[in-house]
C-alpha cells in the first residue's frame, strides 16, 4: 500500500485569517520560505483559506499543478481539519493526504514578537511539509448507527430533548435519578419575567413524556456504565427499587392515606424539608411517572433499609387487588443500546452554609431561594402563605443577591438567573405578604427579552434596591426597633454609607453550581469539565452542545448556569445534533487505528495494554491481530511494541520522526525584510 515512488507534489497555503494571523505572522514570508523546500510545488498566502474561494483555490491547484499533498497553515485542526479534508477530497485527492498546521491558536494569538512568531510558523510549516511527504492514502470505514438515544436527567432540558427526539420518531430512554422528572422547574411557582405558572407550562410536557410511545422513562435510576463509541453505545442502567410495581400502580394514592403513620412525619425533599411526608409517598401531585414509592429508611416494614416484615402493612390492604406494593423488589440492572447520548443533569444550588455570616441554620428565618420557591407556591407546604419557621408573618424581607456567585471566596462566576429570580421572588413575596422588600445587589443583570422591563416594573411596585454586598446578618439589636429582628449590615455603595436594616425574613439568592458528582458523571460519559466543574462544550461558540466525545451532547445547566428559555433552546439544539447524527445512518470512522506489521514476533506485550481488548492473538501465525472496529486509535500499543511492529494510521512512526526532524533542523535564518508586503 505504501508507495512513495511517485513524485511528491505539495501545495502549501498559509491563511491570514483576516488579521488574526497576519498581524503577528508575516504570511507572505512564510509562504516564500516554504516555497523553496523540497517537494513543494506551490506556496500561497490567502486571506481566508476556510472560505469558499479559499477551498476552491486548493481544488483548482490540485488539478492545475497535479498536487498530491496539501498542507494548510491556519487555525487549529480541531476547528477546520474536517473542512480542508473535504476540500481536498472534492479536489480529487484522498482526504488523508492533507495536513494542517496550527499557527493561530499556537502562534499568532499567543506570541507578542512578530519575528519570533513568524519564525515559529516557518518551523511548524516545515515540519508539516516533511510529514506530509510521507502521508498515505487511507480508506474510511463506515459504521452503522443505532437510532436510539439516551437522555440523562429529566429536568426541563432532558424533557424537551426527549420529546423532540420522540416526536421525530426516535426511541428515547430517559433516565432520571429522582423518583419523578421535572427537575428544579417543577418546584417553582411562577417563572420570570412573564410570571406564568411553572406547573402550567411544565406539567403537560411531563405527562407527554410519560405517555409517549417512543419514550422509555426510568426514574429512580442511575447510569452506571457506558461502553462503545459514537453510534454504538452500550449503557448499563441501575433501577433502584421503589417497592412498588410501576406497571401495577395506578397512582390512586390510597396507600398513602392508609399508611400506618396517620400523619406525615418525615422531611419532604421536594418541599426542601419545609413540609412532611409519609414513608410511602409521591414526590408531588403532578409527579411523572404517577407511581408512589416507599422510603425503606423510615418505613416500619424495614429497619434501616432491611426488610423486617413487622408492619401491619395497611398500605398493602389499601392497594387490594392491584397488588402493586412489593416489599421484595430488588435493584435491577438493565442494558440498552443507543447511538447518541444527551447529558442534561442540571445544577445544584450553592450550599449556603459556606457563608456562615448570613446566618443560615443559625437564624430560623433565613431561607434559601429554593425554599422560598416552595413557600410562595400554592401547592407548597404553607399553601402559598408566607408563614415563617417561627410562625410569624414578615413585614420586612431582605433578599441577598450573589450568594455563592461573583465571589472570589466561593464561586467566581455569575449564576445568570439569580438577579431575575430574586426580582421574581420579591414580586411574589410582596404580593403574598404585603411586606416591604429589600434587594441587596452588586449589579442588576437583566439581559434578556422583557427582563429589563421586569426590573422597571419592580421599581414601580416599590421594591427597594440597595447596592452593596451584605457584610453580615445578625440578631444583635443596637436600637429598640431592631429587637427581635434580623439586621442586615451593608455598605450602601451608592449612598456611600454603612446601613443597618432590620427585617423579619432573609432570602439568600444562591448561585448555581455543578453537581457534587459531576466529575464521576463526566468520567462515565468521557467528557471534560471546565475549571468551575460544569461540563465542557466542544467549542464555546460553534459547538456549544457537543462534547469532545462524538455522539455525546450536553444541554441545560450541566453546561453552565442559564435560565429556562436558554435551557430549552439548548435542549432543542442537542436533540437536533443527535438527530443529524442518527439520520445519517452511518458514521465515517477516523482511520487512525493501529495495525500489526508483518515482522511481529508474537511477544504478546501489547495484548494487556489495550483498554478496549481490540488486540487478539492468532495462534496459527503466532502474531498479534488488531480488530480495527474495536480500536479507538490511542496508539498506546504502538508506542509499547518492543520491536516497532505496530503502526498507527495517520500517526506512523516515520511521520512523527519526520515531524520531529522538521521541527529541529537548523532554523531558518532571521528573515531579511522582503520587498513591501502589505
Amino acid at each position: 500500500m505504501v508507495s512513495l515512488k511517485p513524485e511528491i507534489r505539495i501545495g502549501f497555503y498559509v491563511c491570514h485569517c483576516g488579521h488574526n494571523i497576519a498581524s503577528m505572522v508575516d504570511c507572505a514570508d512564510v509562504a516564500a520560505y516554504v516555497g523553496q523546500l523540497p517537494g513543494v510545488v506551490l506556496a500561497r498566502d490567502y486571506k481566508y483559506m476556510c472560505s469558499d474561494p479559499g477551498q476552491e483555490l486548493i481544488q483548482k491547484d490540485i488539478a492545475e499543478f497535479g498536487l498530491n499533498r496539501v498542507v494548510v497553515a491556519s487555525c487549529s485542526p480541531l476547528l477546520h481539519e474536517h473542512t480542508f479534508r473535504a476540500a481536498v477530497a472534492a479536489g480529487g485527492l484522498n482526504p488523508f493526504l492533507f495536513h494542517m498546521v496550527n499557527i493561530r491558536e499556537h502562534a499568532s494569538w499567543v506570541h507578542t514578537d512578530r519575528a519570533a512568531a513568524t519564525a515559529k510558523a516557518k518551523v511548524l510549516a516545515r515540519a508539516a511539509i516533511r510529514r506530509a511527504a510521507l502521508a498515505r492514502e487511507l480508506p474510511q470505514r463506515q459504521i452503522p448507527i443505532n437510532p436510539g438515544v439516551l437522555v440523562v436527567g429529566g429536568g426541563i432540558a432532558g424533557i424537551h430533548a426527549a420529546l423532540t427526539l420522540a416526536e421525530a420518531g426516535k426511541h428515547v430512554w430517559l433516565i432520571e435519578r429522582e423518583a419523578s422528572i421535572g427537575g428544579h422547574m417543577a418546584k417553582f411557582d411562577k417563572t420570570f419575567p412573564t410570571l406564568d405558572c411553572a406547573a402550567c407550562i411544565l406539567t403537560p410536557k411531563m405527562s407527554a413524556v410519560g405517555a409517549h410511545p417512543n419514550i422509555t422513562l426510568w426514574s429512580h435510576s442511575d447510569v452506571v456504565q457506558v461502553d462503545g463509541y459514537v453510534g454504538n453505545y452500550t449503557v448499563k442502567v441501575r433501577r433502584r427499587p421503589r417497592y412498588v410495581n410501576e406497571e401495577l400502580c395506578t397512582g390512586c394514592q390510597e396507600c398513602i392515606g392508609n399508611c400506618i403513620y396517620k400523619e406525615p412525619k418525615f422531611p419532604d425533599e421536594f418541599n426542601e424539608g419545609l413540609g412532611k411526608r409519609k414513608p410511602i409517598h409521591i414526590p408531588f401531585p403532578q409527579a411523572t411517572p404517577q407511581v408512589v414509592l416507599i422510603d425503606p429508611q423510615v418505613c416500619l416494614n424495614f429497619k434501616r433499609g432491611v426488610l423486617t416484615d413487622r408492619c401491619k402493612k395497611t398500605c398493602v390492604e389499601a392497594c387490594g387487588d392491584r397488588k402493586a406494593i412489593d416489599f421484595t423488589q430488588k435493584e435491577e440492572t438493565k442494558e440498552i443500546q443507543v447511538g447518541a447520548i444527551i447529558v442534561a443533569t442540571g445544577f445544584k444550588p450553592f450550599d449556603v452554609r459556606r457563608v456562615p455570616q448570613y446566618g443560615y441554620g443559625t437564624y430560623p428565618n433565613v431561607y434559601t431561594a429554593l425554599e422560598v420557591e416552595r413557600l410562595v407556591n400554592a401547592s407548597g407546604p404553607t399553601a402559598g402563605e408566607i408563614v415563617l419557621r417561627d410562625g410569624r408573618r414578615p413585614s420586612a424581607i431582605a433578599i441577598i443577591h450573589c450568594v455563592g456567585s461573583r465571589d472570589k471566596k466561593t464561586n467566581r462566576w455569575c449564576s445568570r438567573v439569580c438577579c431575575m429570580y430574586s426580582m421574581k421572588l420579591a414580586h411574589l413575596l410582596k404580593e403574598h405578604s404585603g411586606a416591604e422588600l429589600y434587594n441587596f445587589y452588586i449589579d442588576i443583570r437583566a439581559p434578556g427579552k422583557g427582563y429589563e422591563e421586569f426590573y422597571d416594573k419592580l421599581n414601580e411596585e416599590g421594591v427597594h434596591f440597595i447596592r452593596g454586598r451584605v457584610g453580615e446578618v445578625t440578631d444583635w439589636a443596637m436600637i429598640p426597633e431592631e429587637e427581635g429582628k434580623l439586621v442586615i449590615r451593608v455598605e450602601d455603595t451608592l449612598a456611600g454609607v454603612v446601613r443597618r436594616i432590620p427585617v423579619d425574613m432573609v432570602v439568600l439568592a444562591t448561585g448555581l453550581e455543578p453537581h457534587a458528582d459531576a466529575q464521576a458523571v463526566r468520567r462515565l460519559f468521557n467528557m471534560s469539565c471546565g475549571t468551575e466543574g460544569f461540563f465542557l462544550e466542544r467549542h464555546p461558540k460553534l459547538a456549544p452542545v457537543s462534547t469532545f466525545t462524538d455522539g455525546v451532547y450536553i444541554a441545560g445547566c450541566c453546561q453552565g448556569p442559564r435560565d429556562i428559555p436558554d435551557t430549552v433552546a439548548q435542549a432543542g439544539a442537542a436533540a437536533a445534533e443527535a438527530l443529524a447524527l442518527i439520520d445519517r445512518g452511518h458514521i465515517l470512522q477516523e482511520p487512525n487505528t493501529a495495525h500489526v506489521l508483518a515482522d511481529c514476533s508474537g511477544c504478546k506485550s501489547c495484548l494487556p495494554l489495550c483498554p478496549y481488548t481490540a488486540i487478539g492473538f492468532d495462534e496459527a501465525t503466532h502474531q498479534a491481530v488488531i480488530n480495527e472496529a474495536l480500536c479507538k486509535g490511542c496508539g498506546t500499543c504502538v508506542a509499547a511494541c518492543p520491536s516497532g511492529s505496530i503502526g498507527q494510521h495517520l500517526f506512523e512512526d516515520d511521520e512523527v520522526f519526520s515531524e520531529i526532524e522538521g521541527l529541529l533542523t537548523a532554523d531558518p535564518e532571521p528573515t531579511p525584510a522582503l520587498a513591501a508586503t502589505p
Partner: protein
Amino acid sequence: MNAPAQPPAAPPWTPRIVAFFCNWCTYTAADLAGVSRLKYAPNVRVIRLMCSGRVDPQFILEALRRGADGVLIGGCHPGDCHYVEGNYKMLRRFGLLQRMLADLGIPPARVRLEWISAAEGERVKAVINDMTRQLQALGPLDLPGKFADWDAEIADLAATLQTESAKEPEATHTWEPPKVLVQPQ
C-alpha cells in the same frame, strides 16, 4: 522601516522545546490558551498525538538527538484519559526514561511530563514559561554538537591506536584495573 545594511546579529540563544500533546486534553488546552489570547514564550513546538500513551520514548530521544533542549509531554489528568489509561502507560515509561536520561547525564528538568486538562489554558502558559525559564538557565543541551565531539574523539582515539599499534604490533592486550581515588572524608 530602514532595512539594516548588515545582516542582523544572530539573536541570543533561547531553548528549543519539542512538545507532544494529546489531542483531547493538552492540545485542546493549548488551543484554549490561544482563544483566550494568553501570551507565552515562543519556544515550544507542538506535535499533536491522539494520546500521551502514543509517546514512544524514542520520540523523546530523537527530539533530543536532533537538537531539542527539552521535551514536554502533555496528557490528561490521571483518571481522565480519553482512552481510559494511556496516560498511566506514559507515566510508567516516563519514570524509566528519566532514570536512563539521568544515567546519560541529562538532568530531569529537560524532559517534563505534565497533566493539563482541556480547561487549563492558563496552565499551558505557566508550564511553557516555566520550562523555558528553566532551560534558559540550564543552557543548550546540544546533543548534535556533543555527538560530533564524541565522534571526533573516537576518530582521534582510533587514529592514535592505529599509530601505536603500528609501533608495537606484538603487544598483548593486558587489562589494568582503573586507579580508584578514595577521597579522605
